[in-house]
């Protein structure tokens, strides 16, 4: 019998799904299982080294539909290339439950093992991704070539995606906001490129395109050429260009997974143990980077931290 991990590395969907559940597991006692799984995955010759692409933008901008078109096109460019999509939807404050509806708009060809779609609840978090999004991403990093993360898309504070994704794409729809709106938004400073979606309504699209261009000159004057892509899911306009742009991300340098681990380790301590935890991490354990250096593993670092902290 093949193990769950072996099957996951061979892209068996249910095995991947169950591994994701392990990495989403909020109980600290499962960290050891994650550490062991991660060790085996990293050692496998089948392990990949995926790139993280963040898709953010307000609801209605058409993020899901765009992903539904883009992901199947991406895998057609190379015979073994694989893509995972992780879509985060908001949770209800009242019940804690969530309605994860992005699948309705993303219909991938069935039995295509190189495409994988998973929904996540934001579980009360505000930064546009869930507390476990990073956990799942560092798993998917070894299982897929591209990992597309679709954020909640509530508004302009979704900056956490910057620390997770190697490249961030802000999806806009024509007339989503005038020039001033564009400038006000803190989120304008994050994206690697802008995607003006729904460019089938031409006049509005042209106006917004120029408004955006003008705003960018203001908000990000130091950069000379920030990409603005135009797409339309309905007509297929600009989709191939967008795919090429995504493929070319592999040629650019990004922060390593290790650097991301350091950041999200700190985030995890903050969420679980608050300021006191952060202080402890810094003063008693020499900070996240040092701890990670010693343990060489995100999960082992968690185990070690919990152990030390609780014994204090």
């Amino acid at each position, binding site marked *: 019998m093949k193990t769950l991990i072996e099957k996951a590395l061979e892209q*068996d*969907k*249910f*095995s*991947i*799904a*169950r591994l*994701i*559940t392990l990495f*989403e*597991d*909020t*109980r600290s006692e*499962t960290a050891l299982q994650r550490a062991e799984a991660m060790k085996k995955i990293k050692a496998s010759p089948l392990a990949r080294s995926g790139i993280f692409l963040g898709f953010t933008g307000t609801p209605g901008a058409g993020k899901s*539909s765009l992903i539904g078109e883009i992901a199947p096109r991406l895998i057609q460019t190379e015979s073994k290339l694989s893509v995972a999509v992780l879509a985060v939807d908001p*949770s*209800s404050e*009242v*019940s*804690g*439950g*969530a*309605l*994860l*509806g992005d*699948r*309705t*708009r993303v*219909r991938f060809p*069935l*039995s295509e093992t190189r495409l*994988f*779609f*998973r*929904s996540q*609840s934001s*579980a009360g978090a505000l930064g546009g991704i869930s507390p476990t999004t990073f956990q799942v991403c560092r798993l998917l990093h070894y299982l897929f070539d591209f990992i597309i993360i679709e954020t909640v898309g509530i508004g302009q504070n979704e900056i956490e995606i910057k620390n997770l994704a190697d490249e961030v794409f802000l999806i806009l729809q024509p007339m989503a906001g005038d020039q001033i709106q564009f400038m006000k938004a803190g989120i304008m400073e994050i994206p690697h490129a802008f995607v003006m979606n729904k460019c089938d309504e031409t006049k509005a699209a042209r106006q917004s395109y120029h408004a955006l261009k003008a705003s960018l000159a203001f908000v990000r004057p130091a950069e000379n050429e920030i990409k603005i892509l135009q797409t339309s899911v*309905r007509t297929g306009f600009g989709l191939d260009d967008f795919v090429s742009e995504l493929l070319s991300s592999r040629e650019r340098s990004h922060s390593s997974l290790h650097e991301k681990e350091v950041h999200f380790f700190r985030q995890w301590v903050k969420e679980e143990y608050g300021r006191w935890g952060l202080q402890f991490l810094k003063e008693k354990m020499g900070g996240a980077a040092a701890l990670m250096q010693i343990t060489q593993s995100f999960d082992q670092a968690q185990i070690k931290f919990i152990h030390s902290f609780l014994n204090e």
Partner: protein
Amino acid sequence: MSQKDTHTKLDHQLYDENHQATKDHPWIFRTYGGHTNAQATNELFRSGLEKGQTGLSIAFDLPTQCGYSSEHSLAKPEIGKVGVPINSLDDFHVLFEQIPIEKMNTSMTINGTSMWLLALYIALGRERGVDISLLQGTTQNDIVKEYLARGTYIFPPEHSLRIIAEMYEYCLENIPKWNASNICSYHLQEAGATPAQELAFALANAIGILDLIKERGLFDQEQFERVVGRISFFVNAGIRFIEETCKMRAFNELWEEITRERYGVQNPKFRRFRYGVQVNSLGLTESQPENNAWRILIEALGVTLSRNARCRALQLPAWNEALSLPRPWDQQWSLRLQQILAYETDLLEYPDIFEGSKVISSKVEELKTQAKAEIDKILEMGGVRSAVESGYMKSALVKSMSERMSRINDGEQIVVGLNKWTEAIPSPLLQGEDGGIFKVDAKSAAWTLEQLEATKQKRDSDRAEKALAELKKAAQEGKNMMEASIECALARVTTGEWADALREIFGEYRPVTGIEGQKLQLENERVSALRQRNDEFEKKHGHRARIVVGKPGLDGHSNGAEVIAVSARHTGFDVIYSGIRLTPEEIVQSAVEESADIIGVSILSGSHLELADQIIAQLKSAGAFEHIPVVFGGIIPKEDEKVLLEKGIQKVFTPADFELIDIMEQIMNIVESGKKIAA
């Protein structure tokens, strides 16, 4: 001297134009029917006509409604289930054998493929040598309510509305007695609409169509007035029959105002509110089903009592509709009700009996005021198309529906035999050999498939291809597609081919769901207890309980699935809602990728056995059958429930399980016990 002086006229007496005492003609008696295949449905129609039914009302199967030929994989489990399958003109020849279509009033419940079915009807007339200007009837063709409630749409709104407009444009001079579409408020009430919403949404819908036709500018004012006169409505009548009477009077008055003020229609004949009715199915219960007979009778009164607001055609559901499709006997029983009402009672002898009632006129005013406010709101949003595309109308309906469910759950709204007086003697009506329900013979699909194959073999394939090319050209160039469709019909193009050709040009519609942002009006200890169980589940298993809710097959009544999805979130589940018209493969793929703790499947089409087999087989091949339990909900007969459980479905919910919190608790039980086994 004229024969009669007005002095001698009596207030309670009806008089004709010559001042002679008279009585009204009855409305058209319809029975909604169609099943199995064209042959069986032809027999059904002919026996109905012999029994005194005066119009035909055709139910098509879901593949025909959604534009698939019977051979398509989505179609196969559905052939002949909820209506008659029609693949080509050859099927129409069989369907109408020995029925003189030039003398019939034929109503077709068809929407996404309405242009195609009308083209087939005209083609049938041409091949029979009938003068097609004599054809009378209705293609339902109301796409708005398909998006909102019924689900058999194919193309995006812009193109669907163009098809409707083109049918009006074609019919006006070619088949002037044909109702190119029927504005449906029926399905809105089934989806939970309040009377004011029913009025407002239906009228806004009619305004949308007339505005579009006006904007297209192909008619002069005289023709346009006649088009206004062709607008007809298909209305629901619920159990609150006094309010329903008032709703019908409000409809009348509002329509009169709109046609006069907005469209300047001079001729009063073209301002008349013309409508047919199917009385409410939503309120029919599965428990103590014999009580439905009384409900149907009372609901029929709401649309016949008031002469000024009396329906022009009436079709009644059968008492056992919540259990299965009706048998011929059940339909006959409902037809007899109409005949007794029209011929035995004195109903048709009087002028409007509510005239002068302060109570009625005050209630009518209230409904009108509420409806007008809602119409204005929709028009401000940019009209009915925007209100559909933004999800506004859908959300409003889902909200009304969950409020209704909550009222029934709380016992605030009494439903006899369902939430009150539930103890009863078993119904002898269910004791017969067939258990009181109708079943489609599974083998009957073979006939349909053979007929389809034979048609494709026999036809002149060059002519068929040419006809399809012409259709696509007309679609692309914005030309009226009726003639091209008629030529397709004559060339023995199939239903699937016709729809595919237009899918190529127009694309397919993917709906907004009505569930975002909705809350269930349900707060009590049981809800908080279940939320707590969900929180504890998370602590114990490291994740929230995840449920995949989906609707397989072509049946598009999405409200049941949506209410379940909303309730599940409300009680603390993570809900993956994957929408409607899914294949079993798609549902299983969602559950597998999401590593779901349970799958909830909603089915109303009667294909539950086939779908269970397919879902279970898919789960097994993904290695997930042991891990992910499946529950079914929908109209599922008792005896099939056992079969489903034997197949491996964990639980079957039927309309008897109306308490949402019960359903949710039971789902949680299954999720938890599944985890015990896995642990």
